[in-house]
Protein backbone atom coordinates (compact mmCIF):
# COMPACT_ATOMS: atom_id res chain seq x y z
CA UNK A 1 0.00 0.00 0.00
CA UNK A 2 2.78 2.38 0.93
CA UNK A 3 4.11 3.27 -2.50
CA UNK A 4 0.97 2.88 -4.54
CA UNK A 5 0.23 5.85 -6.79
CA UNK A 6 -3.52 5.39 -6.44
CA UNK A 7 -4.27 8.80 -7.80
CA UNK A 8 -2.45 8.04 -11.02
CA UNK A 9 -4.27 4.70 -11.32
CA UNK A 10 -7.63 6.30 -10.84
CA UNK A 11 -7.03 9.18 -13.23
CA UNK A 12 -6.00 6.63 -15.80
CA UNK A 13 -9.00 4.40 -15.18
CA UNK A 14 -11.68 6.28 -13.23
CA UNK A 15 -13.92 3.23 -13.11
CA UNK A 16 -11.45 1.76 -10.62
CA UNK A 17 -12.87 4.11 -7.99
CA UNK A 18 -15.80 1.74 -7.64
CA UNK A 19 -13.49 -1.09 -6.56
CA UNK A 20 -11.48 0.67 -3.86
CA UNK A 21 -11.85 -0.16 -0.18
CA UNK A 22 -11.89 2.36 2.65
CA UNK A 23 -8.18 2.09 3.38
CA UNK A 24 -7.37 2.77 -0.27
CA UNK A 25 -9.73 5.73 -0.29
CA UNK A 26 -8.04 7.12 2.79
CA UNK A 27 -4.74 7.15 0.90
CA UNK A 28 -6.24 8.27 -2.41
CA UNK A 29 -7.94 11.30 -0.87
CA UNK A 30 -4.69 12.37 0.78
CA UNK A 31 -2.78 12.00 -2.49
CA UNK A 32 -5.45 14.00 -4.26
CA UNK A 33 -5.35 16.73 -1.63
CA UNK A 34 -1.59 17.05 -1.93
CA UNK A 35 -1.74 17.21 -5.70
CA UNK A 36 -4.41 19.90 -5.61
CA UNK A 37 -6.88 17.56 -7.29
CA UNK A 38 -9.51 16.76 -4.65
CA UNK A 39 -12.31 18.59 -6.42
CA UNK A 40 -11.21 17.24 -9.81
CA UNK A 41 -11.48 13.73 -8.38
CA UNK A 42 -14.95 14.36 -6.96
CA UNK A 43 -16.17 15.76 -10.29
CA UNK A 44 -14.63 12.80 -12.10
CA UNK A 45 -16.52 10.38 -9.85
CA UNK A 46 -19.72 12.27 -10.48
CA UNK A 47 -19.15 12.38 -14.22
CA UNK A 48 -18.60 8.63 -14.27
CA UNK A 49 -21.85 8.04 -12.39
CA UNK A 50 -19.94 6.41 -9.54
CA UNK A 51 -21.09 8.47 -6.56
CA UNK A 52 -23.71 6.00 -5.35
CA UNK A 53 -21.19 3.17 -5.46
CA UNK A 54 -18.70 4.86 -3.18
CA UNK A 55 -18.41 4.25 0.58
CA UNK A 56 -20.42 6.67 2.69
CA UNK A 57 -17.48 8.55 4.23
CA UNK A 58 -16.13 9.24 0.74
CA UNK A 59 -19.51 10.47 -0.49
CA UNK A 60 -19.58 12.77 2.52
CA UNK A 61 -16.17 14.25 1.71
CA UNK A 62 -17.10 14.69 -1.95
CA UNK A 63 -20.25 16.41 -0.73
CA UNK A 64 -18.07 18.94 1.11
CA UNK A 65 -16.50 19.91 -2.21
CA UNK A 66 -19.73 20.79 -4.01
CA UNK A 67 -20.00 24.26 -2.54
CA UNK A 68 -16.37 25.27 -3.27
CA UNK A 69 -16.65 24.01 -6.85
CA UNK A 70 -19.88 25.90 -7.43
CA UNK A 71 -18.64 29.05 -5.78
CA UNK A 72 -15.37 28.95 -7.70
CA UNK A 73 -17.22 28.70 -11.00
CA UNK A 74 -19.39 31.63 -10.03
CA UNK A 75 -16.34 33.68 -9.04
CA UNK A 76 -14.52 32.94 -12.31
CA UNK A 77 -17.61 33.92 -14.29
CA UNK A 78 -17.84 37.14 -12.33
CA UNK A 79 -14.17 38.03 -12.80
CA UNK A 80 -14.38 37.44 -16.54
CA UNK A 81 -17.52 39.54 -16.74
CA UNK A 82 -15.76 42.38 -14.93
CA UNK A 83 -12.72 42.15 -17.19
CA UNK A 84 -14.88 42.20 -20.30
CA UNK A 85 -16.62 45.31 -18.99
CA UNK A 86 -13.30 47.06 -18.39
CA UNK A 87 -11.71 46.15 -21.73
CA UNK A 88 -14.74 46.46 -24.03
CA UNK A 89 -14.54 50.29 -24.37
CA UNK A 90 -10.91 49.95 -25.51
CA UNK A 91 -11.92 47.72 -28.39
CA UNK A 92 -9.26 45.28 -27.22
CA UNK A 93 -10.09 41.61 -27.73
CA UNK A 94 -9.97 39.56 -24.55
CA UNK A 95 -8.69 36.02 -24.85
CA UNK A 96 -9.04 33.67 -21.89
CA UNK A 97 -6.27 31.22 -21.11
CA UNK A 98 -6.04 28.04 -19.04
CA UNK A 99 -8.50 27.60 -16.18
CA UNK A 100 -10.71 30.54 -17.04
CA UNK A 101 -10.97 29.30 -20.62
CA UNK A 102 -11.79 25.72 -19.59
CA UNK A 103 -14.46 26.99 -17.21
CA UNK A 104 -16.16 29.46 -19.54
CA UNK A 105 -15.97 27.09 -22.52
CA UNK A 106 -17.42 24.36 -20.29
CA UNK A 107 -14.72 21.87 -21.17
CA UNK A 108 -14.23 18.64 -19.19
CA UNK A 109 -10.76 19.95 -18.32
CA UNK A 110 -12.47 22.63 -16.23
CA UNK A 111 -14.53 20.34 -14.01
CA UNK A 112 -13.46 20.69 -10.39
CA UNK A 113 -10.37 22.55 -11.41
CA UNK A 114 -9.82 25.19 -8.75
CA UNK A 115 -7.25 27.89 -9.30
CA UNK A 116 -6.54 31.31 -7.91
CA UNK A 117 -5.20 33.28 -10.88
CA UNK A 118 -7.05 34.47 -13.96
CA UNK A 119 -4.91 34.33 -17.10
CA UNK A 120 -5.72 36.41 -20.17
CA UNK A 121 -4.00 37.20 -23.46
CA UNK A 122 -4.10 40.65 -25.00
CA UNK A 123 -2.28 42.05 -28.06
CA UNK A 124 1.17 43.34 -27.10
CA UNK A 125 0.45 46.67 -28.75
CA UNK A 126 -2.49 47.22 -26.40
CA UNK A 127 -0.61 46.36 -23.21
CA UNK A 128 -0.20 49.94 -22.03
CA UNK A 129 -3.84 50.93 -22.34
CA UNK A 130 -4.99 47.59 -20.91
CA UNK A 131 -2.84 48.06 -17.83
CA UNK A 132 -4.09 51.63 -17.43
CA UNK A 133 -7.73 50.61 -17.71
CA UNK A 134 -7.23 47.79 -15.23
CA UNK A 135 -5.60 50.12 -12.73
CA UNK A 136 -8.50 52.52 -13.02
CA UNK A 137 -10.81 49.64 -12.16
CA UNK A 138 -8.95 48.79 -8.97
CA UNK A 139 -6.24 46.38 -10.13
CA UNK A 140 -2.82 47.02 -8.62
CA UNK A 141 0.50 45.35 -9.21
CA UNK A 142 0.72 42.48 -6.72
CA UNK A 143 4.47 42.50 -6.42
CA UNK A 144 6.07 45.89 -5.82
CA UNK A 145 9.64 44.57 -5.88
CA UNK A 146 11.32 46.70 -8.56
CA UNK A 147 13.57 43.88 -9.73
CA UNK A 148 10.62 41.56 -10.28
CA UNK A 149 8.77 44.36 -12.04
CA UNK A 150 11.65 44.83 -14.45
CA UNK A 151 12.07 41.09 -14.86
CA UNK A 152 8.50 40.73 -15.96
CA UNK A 153 8.37 43.75 -18.24
CA UNK A 154 11.72 43.15 -19.97
CA UNK A 155 11.97 39.40 -20.19
CA UNK A 156 8.61 37.84 -19.63
CA UNK A 157 5.54 37.34 -21.73
CA UNK A 158 3.23 38.82 -19.17
CA UNK A 159 2.74 41.88 -17.01
CA UNK A 160 3.67 41.50 -13.37
CA UNK A 161 0.69 39.86 -11.65
CA UNK A 162 -2.03 42.29 -10.66
CA UNK A 163 -4.37 42.00 -7.73
CA UNK A 164 -7.82 43.52 -7.42
CA UNK A 165 -7.90 45.84 -4.43
CA UNK A 166 -11.38 44.82 -3.33
CA UNK A 167 -11.86 41.28 -4.57
CA UNK A 168 -8.26 40.18 -4.02
CA UNK A 169 -8.22 38.12 -7.23
CA UNK A 170 -4.88 37.74 -9.01
CA UNK A 171 -4.73 38.52 -12.73
CA UNK A 172 -1.95 37.55 -15.13
CA UNK A 173 -2.02 39.57 -18.35
CA UNK A 174 -0.07 37.79 -21.07
CA UNK A 175 0.90 39.05 -24.49
CA UNK A 176 2.52 35.79 -25.62
CA UNK A 177 2.65 32.26 -24.30
CA UNK A 178 6.40 32.15 -23.79
CA UNK A 179 8.91 34.84 -22.77
CA UNK A 180 10.99 36.81 -25.25
CA UNK A 181 14.10 35.14 -23.84
CA UNK A 182 12.93 31.60 -24.46
CA UNK A 183 14.73 29.46 -27.01
CA UNK A 184 11.59 29.18 -29.10
CA UNK A 185 8.98 31.75 -30.01
CA UNK A 186 5.37 30.80 -30.61
CA UNK A 187 4.05 33.74 -32.62
CA UNK A 188 1.07 35.31 -30.89
CA UNK A 189 -0.30 36.52 -34.22
CA UNK A 190 -0.90 32.90 -35.20
CA UNK A 191 -2.79 32.32 -31.94
CA UNK A 192 -4.99 35.36 -32.49
CA UNK A 193 -5.73 34.35 -36.07
CA UNK A 194 -7.10 31.00 -34.99
CA UNK A 195 -8.81 32.14 -31.78
CA UNK A 196 -12.47 31.26 -31.41
CA UNK A 197 -15.31 33.30 -29.92
CA UNK A 198 -17.13 31.95 -26.89
CA UNK A 199 -20.77 31.23 -27.71
CA UNK A 200 -23.06 33.81 -26.15
CA UNK A 201 -20.18 35.95 -24.90
CA UNK A 202 -19.35 38.79 -27.25
CA UNK A 203 -15.82 40.12 -26.90
CA UNK A 204 -14.45 36.93 -25.34
CA UNK A 205 -12.21 34.47 -27.13
CA UNK A 206 -10.43 31.25 -26.40
CA UNK A 207 -7.56 29.54 -28.19
CA UNK A 208 -8.34 27.11 -30.96
CA UNK A 209 -8.30 23.49 -29.72
CA UNK A 210 -4.81 22.67 -31.03
CA UNK A 211 -3.46 25.89 -29.55
CA UNK A 212 -5.14 25.23 -26.21
CA UNK A 213 -3.42 21.86 -26.07
CA UNK A 214 -0.07 23.27 -27.14
CA UNK A 215 -0.29 26.09 -24.62
CA UNK A 216 -1.04 23.59 -21.88
CA UNK A 217 1.92 21.48 -23.01
CA UNK A 218 4.24 24.46 -23.10
CA UNK A 219 3.04 25.58 -19.68
CA UNK A 220 3.77 22.17 -18.18
CA UNK A 221 7.01 21.31 -19.92
CA UNK A 222 8.59 24.76 -20.04
CA UNK A 223 7.54 26.14 -16.70
CA UNK A 224 9.87 25.56 -13.77
CA UNK A 225 7.37 24.60 -11.13
CA UNK A 226 6.09 21.08 -11.02
CA UNK A 227 4.27 21.24 -7.77
CA UNK A 228 1.07 20.60 -9.66
CA UNK A 229 2.70 18.57 -12.40
CA UNK A 230 0.19 15.75 -12.25
CA UNK A 231 -2.67 18.20 -12.43
CA UNK A 232 -1.07 19.79 -15.49
CA UNK A 233 -0.71 16.37 -17.09
CA UNK A 234 -4.33 15.57 -16.37
CA UNK A 235 -5.39 18.88 -17.92
CA UNK A 236 -3.60 17.79 -21.10
CA UNK A 237 -5.20 14.38 -20.94
CA UNK A 238 -8.68 15.90 -20.62
CA UNK A 239 -8.09 18.30 -23.48
CA UNK A 240 -6.67 15.59 -25.75
CA UNK A 241 -9.52 13.18 -25.05
CA UNK A 242 -12.14 15.88 -25.62
CA UNK A 243 -10.70 17.41 -28.77
CA UNK A 244 -9.29 14.10 -29.99
CA UNK A 245 -12.76 12.87 -30.80
CA UNK A 246 -12.37 14.91 -33.97
CA UNK A 247 -9.88 13.26 -36.32
CA UNK A 248 -8.97 16.58 -37.88
CA UNK A 249 -7.55 17.61 -34.51
CA UNK A 250 -4.84 14.93 -34.55
CA UNK A 251 -4.02 15.71 -38.15
CA UNK A 252 -3.56 19.41 -37.45
CA UNK A 253 -1.62 19.06 -34.20
CA UNK A 254 1.92 18.26 -35.46
CA UNK A 255 1.89 20.96 -38.13
CA UNK A 256 0.68 23.52 -35.67
CA UNK A 257 3.38 22.55 -33.19
CA UNK A 258 5.93 23.10 -35.92
CA UNK A 259 4.49 26.49 -36.86
CA UNK A 260 4.58 27.60 -33.20
CA UNK A 261 8.05 26.12 -32.67
CA UNK A 262 6.89 23.96 -29.77
CA UNK A 263 7.43 20.47 -31.14
CA UNK A 264 9.54 19.41 -28.16
CA UNK A 265 6.75 20.28 -25.71
CA UNK A 266 4.21 18.44 -27.84
CA UNK A 267 6.47 15.41 -27.95
CA UNK A 268 6.69 15.29 -24.16
CA UNK A 269 2.98 15.99 -23.79
CA UNK A 270 1.94 13.10 -26.01
CA UNK A 271 4.57 10.80 -24.60
CA UNK A 272 3.80 11.28 -20.92
CA UNK A 273 0.03 11.50 -21.19
CA UNK A 274 -0.08 8.24 -23.12
CA UNK A 275 2.46 6.53 -20.87
CA UNK A 276 1.09 7.65 -17.52
CA UNK A 277 -2.58 8.28 -18.13
CA UNK A 278 -3.26 6.02 -21.10
CA UNK A 279 -4.41 8.90 -23.31
CA UNK A 280 -5.48 7.45 -26.70
CA UNK A 281 -2.87 9.21 -28.81
CA UNK A 282 -2.69 7.86 -32.38
CA UNK A 283 0.41 5.68 -32.84
CA UNK A 284 1.63 7.73 -35.81
CA UNK A 285 1.96 10.82 -33.65
CA UNK A 286 3.76 8.93 -30.91
CA UNK A 287 6.21 7.44 -33.41
CA UNK A 288 6.90 10.74 -35.16
CA UNK A 289 10.46 12.01 -35.05
CA UNK A 290 9.49 15.67 -34.70
CA UNK A 291 10.45 17.08 -31.35
CA UNK A 292 12.11 13.88 -30.16
CA UNK A 293 15.25 14.69 -28.14
CA UNK A 294 18.49 12.70 -28.40
CA UNK A 295 18.27 9.26 -26.75
CA UNK A 296 20.37 10.20 -23.70
CA UNK A 297 18.32 13.32 -23.04
CA UNK A 298 15.12 11.35 -23.45
CA UNK A 299 16.25 8.77 -20.93
CA UNK A 300 17.02 11.51 -18.45
CA UNK A 301 13.73 13.25 -19.06
CA UNK A 302 11.86 9.98 -18.67
CA UNK A 303 13.48 9.49 -15.29
CA UNK A 304 12.90 13.07 -14.19
CA UNK A 305 9.33 13.45 -15.39
CA UNK A 306 8.44 9.95 -14.33
CA UNK A 307 9.15 10.96 -10.77
CA UNK A 308 7.88 14.48 -10.88
CA UNK A 309 4.55 13.68 -12.45
CA UNK A 310 3.68 11.23 -9.70
CA UNK A 311 1.17 12.35 -7.10
CA UNK A 312 2.78 14.72 -4.66
CA UNK A 313 2.71 12.65 -1.49
CA UNK A 314 5.21 10.91 0.76
CA UNK A 315 3.69 7.58 -0.20
CA UNK A 316 4.89 8.15 -3.76
CA UNK A 317 8.24 9.76 -3.14
CA UNK A 318 11.44 7.86 -3.52
CA UNK A 319 14.88 9.09 -2.56
CA UNK A 320 15.33 11.04 -5.77
CA UNK A 321 12.01 12.82 -5.91
CA UNK A 322 13.29 16.10 -4.47
CA UNK A 323 16.36 16.15 -6.68
CA UNK A 324 14.23 15.44 -9.73
CA UNK A 325 11.97 18.35 -8.96
CA UNK A 326 14.92 20.70 -8.56
CA UNK A 327 16.57 19.53 -11.77
CA UNK A 328 13.38 20.19 -13.67
CA UNK A 329 12.99 23.59 -12.01
CA UNK A 330 16.39 24.46 -13.36
CA UNK A 331 15.53 23.03 -16.75
CA UNK A 332 12.29 24.95 -16.84
CA UNK A 333 13.93 28.20 -16.08
CA UNK A 334 16.76 27.45 -18.49
CA UNK A 335 14.28 27.05 -21.31
CA UNK A 336 12.82 30.45 -20.47
CA UNK A 337 15.98 32.43 -19.82
CA UNK A 338 19.52 32.19 -21.22
CA UNK A 339 21.92 30.66 -18.65
CA UNK A 340 23.82 33.79 -17.55
CA UNK A 341 20.73 35.83 -16.95
CA UNK A 342 19.20 32.87 -15.16
CA UNK A 343 22.03 32.64 -12.64
CA UNK A 344 21.73 36.28 -11.77
CA UNK A 345 17.97 36.07 -11.55
CA UNK A 346 17.93 32.97 -9.37
CA UNK A 347 20.52 34.47 -7.07
CA UNK A 348 18.60 37.68 -6.71
CA UNK A 349 15.39 35.84 -6.05
CA UNK A 350 17.02 33.65 -3.44
CA UNK A 351 18.39 36.58 -1.53
CA UNK A 352 15.74 39.18 -1.85
CA UNK A 353 12.27 37.97 -2.70
CA UNK A 354 10.09 35.60 -0.65
CA UNK A 355 8.50 32.99 -2.85
CA UNK A 356 5.01 33.68 -4.01
CA UNK A 357 2.88 30.66 -3.36
CA UNK A 358 -0.40 30.15 -5.10
CA UNK A 359 -2.07 27.92 -7.61
CA UNK A 360 -1.41 28.94 -11.17
CA UNK A 361 -4.47 29.27 -13.34
Amino acid at each position, binding site marked *: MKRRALLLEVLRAPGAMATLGLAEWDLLLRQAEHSGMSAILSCLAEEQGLLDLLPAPVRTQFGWLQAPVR*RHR*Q*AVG*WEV*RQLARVLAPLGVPLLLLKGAAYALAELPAGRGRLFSDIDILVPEAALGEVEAALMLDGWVSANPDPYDQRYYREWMHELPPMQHARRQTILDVHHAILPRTAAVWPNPALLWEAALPLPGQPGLRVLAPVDMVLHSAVHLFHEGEFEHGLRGLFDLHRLLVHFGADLGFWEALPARARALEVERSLFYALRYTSLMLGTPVPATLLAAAAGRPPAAVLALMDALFGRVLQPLHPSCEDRFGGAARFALYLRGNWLRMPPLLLARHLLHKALLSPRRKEIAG
Partner: protein
Amino acid sequence: MWKLLEGQTLNCRGWDDEFMVYNDVSGDSHLLGIDAMELLRRLRSGPASEEMLAEALAVAPDEREGLALTLEQLAGLFLIERL
Protein backbone atom coordinates in the same frame (compact mmCIF):
# COMPACT_ATOMS: atom_id res chain seq x y z
CA MET B 1 -32.81 53.83 -18.24
CA TRP B 2 -32.03 51.34 -15.54
CA LYS B 3 -32.39 47.59 -15.43
CA LEU B 4 -31.46 44.66 -13.21
CA LEU B 5 -28.10 43.11 -14.02
CA GLU B 6 -28.49 40.09 -16.22
CA GLY B 7 -28.66 37.00 -14.01
CA GLN B 8 -30.06 38.64 -10.89
CA THR B 9 -32.98 36.72 -9.43
CA LEU B 10 -33.25 39.06 -6.44
CA ASN B 11 -33.26 36.26 -3.92
CA CYS B 12 -34.14 38.17 -0.79
CA ARG B 13 -35.42 37.84 2.75
CA GLY B 14 -37.11 40.65 4.56
CA TRP B 15 -37.97 41.47 8.11
CA ASP B 16 -39.90 44.65 8.84
CA ASP B 17 -38.19 47.33 6.80
CA GLU B 18 -34.87 45.65 6.25
CA PHE B 19 -33.88 43.15 3.62
CA MET B 20 -31.00 40.85 2.87
CA VAL B 21 -30.40 40.30 -0.82
CA TYR B 22 -28.18 37.64 -2.35
CA ASN B 23 -26.34 38.92 -5.41
CA ASP B 24 -26.35 35.96 -7.84
CA VAL B 25 -23.76 37.56 -10.04
CA SER B 26 -21.07 38.71 -7.61
CA GLY B 27 -21.78 36.24 -4.80
CA ASP B 28 -22.00 39.12 -2.33
CA SER B 29 -24.85 39.65 0.13
CA HIS B 30 -26.35 43.09 0.77
CA LEU B 31 -28.37 44.64 3.58
CA LEU B 32 -30.89 47.06 2.06
CA GLY B 33 -33.56 49.37 3.34
CA ILE B 34 -37.12 49.34 2.10
CA ASP B 35 -36.65 52.12 -0.46
CA ALA B 36 -33.76 50.42 -2.19
CA MET B 37 -35.65 47.12 -2.11
CA GLU B 38 -38.68 48.75 -3.71
CA LEU B 39 -36.51 50.11 -6.50
CA LEU B 40 -35.14 46.65 -7.18
CA ARG B 41 -38.61 45.12 -7.19
CA ARG B 42 -39.82 47.64 -9.73
CA LEU B 43 -36.87 46.94 -11.96
CA ARG B 44 -37.53 43.22 -11.73
CA SER B 45 -40.75 43.86 -13.64
CA GLY B 46 -38.79 45.57 -16.38
CA PRO B 47 -36.37 48.38 -17.18
CA ALA B 48 -37.38 51.87 -16.05
CA SER B 49 -36.06 55.40 -16.13
CA GLU B 50 -35.38 57.45 -13.04
CA GLU B 51 -38.56 59.45 -13.74
CA MET B 52 -40.67 56.32 -13.98
CA LEU B 53 -39.23 55.03 -10.71
CA ALA B 54 -39.78 58.36 -8.98
CA GLU B 55 -43.43 58.30 -10.01
CA ALA B 56 -43.98 54.66 -9.10
CA LEU B 57 -42.50 55.15 -5.62
CA ALA B 58 -44.11 58.57 -5.04
CA VAL B 59 -40.75 60.26 -4.57
CA ALA B 60 -41.07 63.96 -3.66
CA PRO B 61 -39.06 66.52 -5.67
CA ASP B 62 -36.67 67.21 -2.78
CA GLU B 63 -36.00 63.50 -2.49
CA ARG B 64 -35.00 63.09 -6.12
CA GLU B 65 -31.33 63.57 -5.37
CA GLY B 66 -31.52 60.78 -2.82
CA LEU B 67 -33.15 58.56 -5.42
CA ALA B 68 -30.40 59.24 -7.93
CA LEU B 69 -27.77 58.48 -5.30
CA THR B 70 -29.45 55.21 -4.31
CA LEU B 71 -29.55 54.13 -7.95
CA GLU B 72 -25.82 54.83 -8.28
CA GLN B 73 -25.14 52.87 -5.11
CA LEU B 74 -27.16 49.90 -6.33
CA ALA B 75 -25.19 50.05 -9.58
CA GLY B 76 -21.98 50.11 -7.55
CA LEU B 77 -23.11 46.87 -5.91
CA PHE B 78 -23.68 45.36 -9.36
CA LEU B 79 -27.37 44.80 -8.72
CA ILE B 80 -28.52 47.16 -11.48
CA GLU B 81 -26.96 48.87 -14.48
CA ARG B 82 -27.75 51.52 -17.04
CA LEU B 83 -29.38 50.25 -20.17
